[in-house]
């Protein structure tokens, strides 16, 4: 809202400079945007919050200033001379949709001389950024900017049938606005129609056909109440916001409906001459029911932490327009222009903002209260710290992606992605089901600017439609928390990092029912991808992660030339690992025996199975086992065979293992590997 300093002075004399005034207004709720000099005047741009339509007019702002500086407020009381016939005898008025137009009034002025406005009016309008049109239109704008009540002026001769009908638009009904553009209306909107069709889009804009021109002789002044929703629907969907729609969306002061009509009539008579018909043609009932609110004086200090005396409370509320009702207790009637005030807390806020928040103390002590990070938060931090320690940078990619990105495979099921409207950014309207494509794209973006080693990670949610009805009871959308990274290198590079993450969280592949299994996924090279499965008591194994080398097609799609691998973990299904209790396992006291065994197996035998056999056979006596070497030699091992040199570390917790003990244990291990994996020992 732009306020003219000279205009404001019509209603209140403030003993302050403009900077002092705007500062004081800002500290009471009218945020100061800027002050600009316009000719001899100053334009103060103030931000008016949506609960304060009363400040969308100079009088409302003057009232605030009057209260803040303790000065009287003087508002004119227009009493235009009604020298014409009864207005109601010549104009018929009908409201067909009272739910969107509770009250409508029209005044008629005959034989006006439409022409230029006087310079004082042109100047004031210019200060607040409004271009002068002619004396009649200028008056309607002026009075709106004065009172906050939008007005509209019609050419009476253009109202076909001398009728005014307020009704909903019919679907597809065309309307040509004052800007000479044609709009297609729908039934959510409200129109002012004459005997034939719409002459104005109610509360938004007048029509071209009935606008005031140099030929206009008789003028109809509309002053009405329109419900916020139809006005907003029209302004938004037709992209046709106006000063009028802005105010009706917020609700002008009902008491100003008639005041503004009289004020405009008086000014038109003065500036354009003419004769005013007697009375106003009205329809409907003015919706105006100010609340009566009980205020317990102590409530103020209970909320603010500042004592404001009973007397002071009254001295703040009265000039704001609140009236103390007679009788016991503190019951205040809100003024008509403050429909936002209906509850006790609203009065407390009024007292607070006028008294000033600078009085609120800032040195209270608050009691200590211990808090802890949640396991989820700990897991997020552990993963982030580990990856940062490994040289990864944290990325933040959009939760919403375009169709090509969304169409890439998700490790988390193939239910259709959720779609939003409007798109987040152009083309991106799919909630992502995996972070992997976004990180591939981010790495590709770095390659495009010549950075080839962008190892990135992100910890964020994906969005999945819940698969089953039972699950849908806990909400139709599942939001798995994913920890995803992309790195240069091969499958084992990514797997090593994934393993480290699992270990840092408190689990480890092999333990805790975490196993790797080959995975076929379009993102990854066939044979170079795995899923991580988790088995917990009483539940079938479920996927908690994937890891793989990007396929050539995936790399080409994202402009990645070198080998790239990635992994995605469902952190929300691993969080419990963090919460697990740690109990000391005393380091072994007895020496270990290291033995390498060379096992020959069929090519298809997986190390995971071999390891399982070794662990089963060795039991507690196995300290560790790892693959030291794998080699293939068709001549010496046979076709489709491979040799694994396994480094075993054997140790007992109860005594020193002898060479013989170790040899016997090796025999058992080899036998178990033979039984389960067809392994033979190579001497």
């Amino acid at each position, binding site marked *: 809202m732009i306020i003219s300093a000279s205009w404001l002075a019509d209603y209140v004399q403030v003993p302050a400079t403009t900077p002092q005034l705007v500062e004081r207004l800002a500290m009471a709720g009218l945020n100061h945007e800027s002050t600009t000099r316009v000719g001899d005047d100053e334009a103060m741009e103030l931000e008016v919050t949506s609960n304060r339509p009363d400040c969308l007019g100079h009088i409302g702002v003057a009232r605030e200033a009057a209260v803040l500086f303790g000065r009287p407020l003087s508002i004119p009381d227009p009493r235009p001379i009604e020298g014409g016939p009864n207005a109601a005898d010549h104009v018929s008025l009908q409201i067909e949709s009272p739910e969107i137009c509770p009250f409508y009034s029209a005044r008629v002025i005959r034989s006006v001389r439409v022409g230029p406005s006087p310079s004082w009016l042109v100047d004031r309008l210019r200060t607040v950024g409004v271009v002068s049109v002619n004396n009649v239109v200028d008056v309607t704008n002026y009075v709106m900017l004065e009172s906050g009540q939008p007005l509209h002026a019609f050419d009476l001769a253009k109202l076909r049938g001398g009728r005014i009908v307020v009704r909903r638009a019919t679907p597809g009904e065309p309307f040509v606005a004052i800007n000479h553009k044609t709009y297609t209306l729908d039934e959510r909107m409200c129109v002012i129609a004459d005997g034939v069709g719409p002459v104005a889009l109610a509360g938004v804009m007048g029509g071209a056909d009935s606008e005031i021109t140099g030929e206009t002789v008789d003028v109809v002044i509309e002053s009405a109440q329109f419900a916020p929703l139809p006005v907003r629907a029209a302004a938004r969907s037709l992209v046709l916001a106006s000063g009028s729609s802005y105010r009706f969306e917020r609700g002008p002061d009902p008491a100003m409906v008639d005041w503004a009509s009289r004020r405009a009539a008086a000014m038109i008579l003065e500036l354009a001459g003419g004769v005013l018909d007697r009375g106003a043609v009205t329809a409907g009932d003015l919706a105006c029911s100010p609340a009566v609110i009980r205020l317990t004086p102590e409530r103020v200090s209970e909320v603010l932490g500042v004592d404001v005396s009973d007397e002071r409370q009254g001295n703040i509320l009265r000039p704001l327009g609140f009236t103390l009702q007679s009788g016991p207790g503190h019951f205040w009637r809100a003024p008509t222009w403050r429909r936002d005030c209906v509850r006790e807390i609203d009065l407390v806020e009024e007292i607070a903002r006028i008294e000033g928040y600078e009085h609120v103390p800032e040195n209270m002590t608050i*009691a200590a209260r211990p808090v802890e990070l949640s396991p989820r938060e700990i897991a997020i931090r552990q993963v982030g710290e580990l990856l940062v320690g490994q040289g990864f940078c944290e990325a933040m990619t959009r*939760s919403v992606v375009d169709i090509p990105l969304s169409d890439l495979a998700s490790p988390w099921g193939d239910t259709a992605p959720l779609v939003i409207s409007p798109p987040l950014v152009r083309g991106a309207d799919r909630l992502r089901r995996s972070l992997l494509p976004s990180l591939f794209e981010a790495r590709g973006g770095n390659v495009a600017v010549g950075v080839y080693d962008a190892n990135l990670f992100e910890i964020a949610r994906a969005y999945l439609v819940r698969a089953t009805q039972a699950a849908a009871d806990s909400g139709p959308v599942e939001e798995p928390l994913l920890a995803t990274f992309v790195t240069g290198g091969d499958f084992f590079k990514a797997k090593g990092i994934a393993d480290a993450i699992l270990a840092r969280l408190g689990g480890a592949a092999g333990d805790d029912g975490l196993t790797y299994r080959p995975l076929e996924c379009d993102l990854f090279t066939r044979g170079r991808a795995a899923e991580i499965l988790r088995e917990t008591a009483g539940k079938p194994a479920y996927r908690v992660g994937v890891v793989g080398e990007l396929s050539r097609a995936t790399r080409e799609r994202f402009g990645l030339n070198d080998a790239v691998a990635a992994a995605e973990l469902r952190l929300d299904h691993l969080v419990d690992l963090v919460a697990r209790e740690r109990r000391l396992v005393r380091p072994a006291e007895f020496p270990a025996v290291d033995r390498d065994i060379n096992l020959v197996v069929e090519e298809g035998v997986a190390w995971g199975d071999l390891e399982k056999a070794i662990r089963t056979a060795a039991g507690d006596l196995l300290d560790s086992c790892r693959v030291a070497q794998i080699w293939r030699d068709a001549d010496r091992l046979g076709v489709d065979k491979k040799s694994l040199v396994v480094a075993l570390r054997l140790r007992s917790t109860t005594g020193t293992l002898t060479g013989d003990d170790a040899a016997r244990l090796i025999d058992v291990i080899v036998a178990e590997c033979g039984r389960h994996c067809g392994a033979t020992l190579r001497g």
Partner: protein
Amino acid sequence: MTNVAGTPLDSFRAELDRLQRDAAAALDDCNSAAALEEARVEFAGARSGRLKAAQKMLGGLDAADKPGGGRLFNEAKAAVTMLLETAQSRLAQGDDEVEPVDVTLPGEAVPLGHLHPVTLTIRRVQEIMGRLGFESVDGPEVEDQWHNFEALAISPEHPARDPLDNFYLSVARSADPLLLRSQTSTVQIRVMESRDPPLRIVSLGRVYRPDTADATHYPMFHQVEGLLVEPGTTMAHLKSVLRMFASCFLGGDVHVRFRPSFFPFTEPSVEVDMEWGGRWVEMGGAGMIDPAVLEAVGYDPDAVTGFAFGLGVERIAARRYGVDDIRDFYRNDVRFLRQF
């Protein structure tokens, strides 16, 4: 490991294995320069060292085996050289006569990763608020009408619910359309619904509003919102907590300033300014939790009061790090990310 097949390659391989084992044994044990020299001559001596001898065996291999044999020999030689160097450097410790190095040469590079500046900012807020007893909480980003609007006293007619001002999901649930949350206050509602006062929480995470992306707007951004519900809470507590936060976050004895404002879920509502770099900077919104919100979550507004405040993370991060275009936070250019 007897040589059953008996090809020259097998015996060559066996000799190399033996040689390496013996060298490891000898060099691991040697504890004087003299012993080291003796071992060096035995294994790597130019004339009659065992490596030299093994090299001669190469000539006896089948032609087809020669490349493989050569590779094996080179590996063995490298292993022995490594063992010698290791032993040498072990013995050289404490020896003043080692070759000096150019200490201005770079050390072995260790890759340094970086957390995102938005995360760093959130963590800092969480840390400070944690010390003031506020627990970090998190909640869903896809929300329903109740948590995103109704419980926050945003009525169906409120412009904030306009489809054009929100990202509604187009799944058919017309009775209760879902949307991407427009504020993290949704999490506060969820926590209040499931827990009784006293309560101190900070909710944080991504929120979504249809703004055209420019230097100061992005349709996805992060919010941190604090909430405290305890009997007897006043705006003085709100101001004091924010001042403690500001002093910690910005350093020094920082003052905060309240300007009246309007939010549906707080009343009174204020904009919060903090002194930063010698002037008042708008940091976010705050207020006393509206009694209607307390009622919506089943609290008794006569028994408890509370306050809430919200900060826009990107705006703070941008100011803290001198980022003049918030879109940079989402470009994921590592030349940007590596600076934090």
